[in-house]
């Protein structure tokens, strides 16, 4: 009965959900959210946390059925509400922010019209008044020049800005409960912090409760009061954040806590040697997109950056989105035309290299992509994907080739996956395939472009550990690109911090993490998810 806990806004009572009769999604989950409280719902992908959120809004996809329990909102079971009641509940009482800010705003409508649409749907209010309130709300989520923003379209904003606009549009209706489904997973650590600060500040001032769905315990430690840990649809543990993080009772919770990046300076010393690859005063300029009548300003993505990587050395390049770190990585592989500077590989300057030398350089260097969903050809089987680079190495017999691929798959922990297609693999497994493809030809230099930022924290740790293991075993040099300073200490010998196309600070892992000099480095460090908030 709802009277048992008079203080509960959202009350999930022994809820079980199934997909079709046989597949259990949620199993006997119970927890409460009090008004104004921030509760974190934590678990890996596939733990059922998103379905729980959708259940609260009654937005479950087809095929999901409730087999037991209830979701009480203000004491009323949402499964028993009529369609009209649900419509007036969604938005006005419960707001929702989605993971992907790039697709959750309508690209064909101005921001202003989208903000007003929701407001006028739920409240009798004139266009002028609605406009006024929307402008005010945009100001509160710290959008510069809100008036101008109202007339702009979503594509004119960055991911972080869009997510703040999303928050504005949801909070305009002053909901009692805000469900934030991994609101910052797609953003870099600095932007992540900005967005969450805005969200917490805003919900606090209007005493809106928040159900924060995330796989990142660092965020939980920083912002939530209570947490609920889910594992494969089962409630593992729930209670106050401080208590759980400091004294986790269940082993699964400990796994999640251990997955948080911890500093690890245990890497062996790199032998002093002449650099394997050197980039000198590298500049990359992208022509502006512009429109039919005028070309826009060309964009200087990388401005005169010099980097040298020794054989076997792992260098981390860290910076927020737009810092030029990805461009630097591609440019060092010779994948982008240079506006200035040169790359020297094994003592040969690429601008003067013969075709054969350039080809040897290309074959010696590999790239691991950020998004494991688009970097694998969906029509190739895993075996063929991993085997393809061998076409360009020394000729191998069919058997040698097969053994080499099997060996590689085993090394990345995917034995027996050769016959599957990429779509049948999880994100972490796909990234293992991408790493296997990059390493199979024993490259001398690998650029890893945010290889783990699309993955869950626990999977991130596994993939980082794998990468480190392979790097130590095969001894390739590596440029490890990341937006997360915390994640790189496990894999790097040296850190380079980049901001708007230039290096602002570089040094050993210890120096950068423990004694940062530049303000930007400090900000990045502060934004990195750790448990320091409760420790």
């Amino acid at each position, binding site marked *: 009965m709802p009277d048992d806990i008079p203080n509960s806004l959202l009350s999930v009572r022994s809820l079980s959900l199934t997909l079709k009769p046989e597949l259990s999604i949620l199993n006997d989950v119970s927890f409460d959210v009090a008004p104004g409280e921030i509760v974190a719902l934590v678990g890996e992908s596939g733990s059922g946390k998103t379905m729980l959120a959708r259940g609260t809004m009654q937005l479950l996809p087809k095929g999901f059925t409730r087999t037991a329990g209830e979701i009480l909102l203000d004491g009323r079971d949402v499964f028993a509400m009529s369609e009209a009641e649900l419509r007036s509940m969604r938005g006005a009482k419960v707001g929702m922010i989605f993971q992907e800010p790039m697709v959750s705003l309508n690209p064909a409508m101005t921001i202003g019209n989208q903000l007003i649409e929701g407001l006028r749907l739920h409240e009798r209010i004139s266009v002028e008044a609605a406009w006024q309130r929307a402008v005010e709300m945009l100001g509160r989520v710290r959008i510069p020049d809100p008036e101008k923003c109202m007339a702009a379209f979503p594509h004119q904003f960055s991911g972080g800005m869009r997510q703040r606009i999303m928050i504005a549009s949801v909070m305009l209706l002053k909901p009692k409960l805000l469900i934030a489904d991994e609101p910052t997973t797609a953003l870099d650590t600095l932007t992540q912090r900005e967005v969450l600060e805005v969200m917490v500040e805003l919900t606090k001032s209007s005493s809106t409760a928040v159900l924060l769905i995330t796989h990142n315990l660092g965020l939980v430690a920083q912002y939530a009061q209570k947490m609920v840990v889910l594992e494969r649809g089962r409630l593992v543990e729930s209670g106050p954040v401080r208590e759980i993080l400091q004294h986790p009772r269940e082993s699964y919770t400990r796994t999640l806590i251990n997955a948080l990046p911890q500093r690890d300076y245990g890497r062996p010393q790199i032998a002093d040697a002449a650099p394997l690859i050197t980039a000198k005063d590298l500049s990359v300029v992208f022509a502006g997109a512009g429109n039919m009548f005028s070309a826009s300003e060309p964009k200087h993505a990388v401005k005169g950056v010099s980097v040298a990587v020794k054989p076997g050395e792992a260098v981390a390049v860290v910076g927020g989105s737009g810092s030029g770190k990805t461009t630097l990585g591609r440019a060092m592989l010779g994948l982008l035309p240079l506006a200035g500077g040169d790359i020297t590989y094994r003592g040969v300057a690429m601008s003067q290299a013969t075709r054969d030398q350039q080809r040897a350089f290309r074959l010696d*260097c*590999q790239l691991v992509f950020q998004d494991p969903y*688009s970097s694998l*050809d*969906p029509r190739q089987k895993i075996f063929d994907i991993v085997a*393809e*680079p061998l076409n360009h190495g020394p000729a191998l017999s069919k058997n040698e080739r097969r053994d080499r691929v099997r060996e590689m798959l085993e090394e990345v922990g995917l034995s027996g996956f050769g016959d599957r*297609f990429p*779509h*049948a693999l999880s994100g972490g497994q796909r990234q293992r395939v991408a790493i296997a493809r990059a390493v199979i030809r024993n490259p001398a230099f690998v650029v890893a472009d945010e290889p783990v930022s699309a993955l869950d924290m626990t999977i991130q740790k596994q993939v980082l550990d794998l990468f480190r293991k392979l790097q130590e075993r095969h001894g390739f040099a590596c440029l490890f690109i990341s937006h997360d300073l915390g994640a790189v200490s496990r894999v790097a010998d040296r850190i380079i911090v980049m901001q708007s196309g230039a290096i602002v600070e570089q040094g050993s892992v210890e120096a950068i993490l423990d004694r940062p000099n530049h303000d930007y480095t400090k900000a990045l460090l502060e934004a990195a998810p750790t448990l320091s908030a409760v420790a």
Partner: protein
Amino acid sequence: MMRPSLNLVVGSLLIGIVVAMAVTAFFWTPYSPMAVNLKARMVGPSASYLLGTDDFGRDVLSRLLVGASQSLTVAILTVALAVGIGATLGLISGYVRGMVDRVLMVVSDAILALPGTLLALGLMVIMGPNKYGVIFALGVAYSPSVLRIVRSSVLSVREREFVEASRVIGNSELQTMVRHVLPNSIAPLVVLATSMFGWVVLAESGLSFLGLGVPPPAPTWGNMLSAARPFLERAPWLGLAPGICISMTLLGINLLGDALRDRLDPRMERQ
């Protein structure tokens, strides 16, 4: 493995029948398809003439069998030509971009601006009415639609990271194009090619009707259908026989196309 879908079964069955008809015609027909018998003009279906005779007293069944081989050859070769030209140019246009793309698009736009049949008609006047003229004319007329479809899917596929990954592992542009871009751009083409098969059968009959198709007395389903038009009330079997054959082929080929598209998509394997 996957259980064959209903589409696949029915489609193969229908196409199987049509192919069997075409093959039979090579070895045996009840009568000569050209033999005129003025004493037996427009005889209804009977024991001696299973599907009756036409206005010249020629056996409809024999003509239908021979027509199957004629129509199938024309349709298959035309679609192959259109897909060959269109897919190659579309792949180049979408993948290389730049000046090549612009020129190809202008040419294909110019061709698309004319109705396909009209263009084929013009080409046929130059080529003279014969089977290979029809194939060439229709193939050229339909290739721009293939080009556009392939180009648009290549444009989206080439931006995916696995294309860049292919370059990074050392594949040349040509290898990347053939191994990674083409297979991922092919699904919409399969659907287009199957519906094109139908257009070709119809367009060929239209050209035949205007006296520019496969020249009479050689039978095709198209020219049989158009020749039957004046007699539809008196001798409905004349139109029904080729009409049903054309419909059956189109249905079969469309079902096969759907089944093929599903099978080409590895994501469908589980279902």
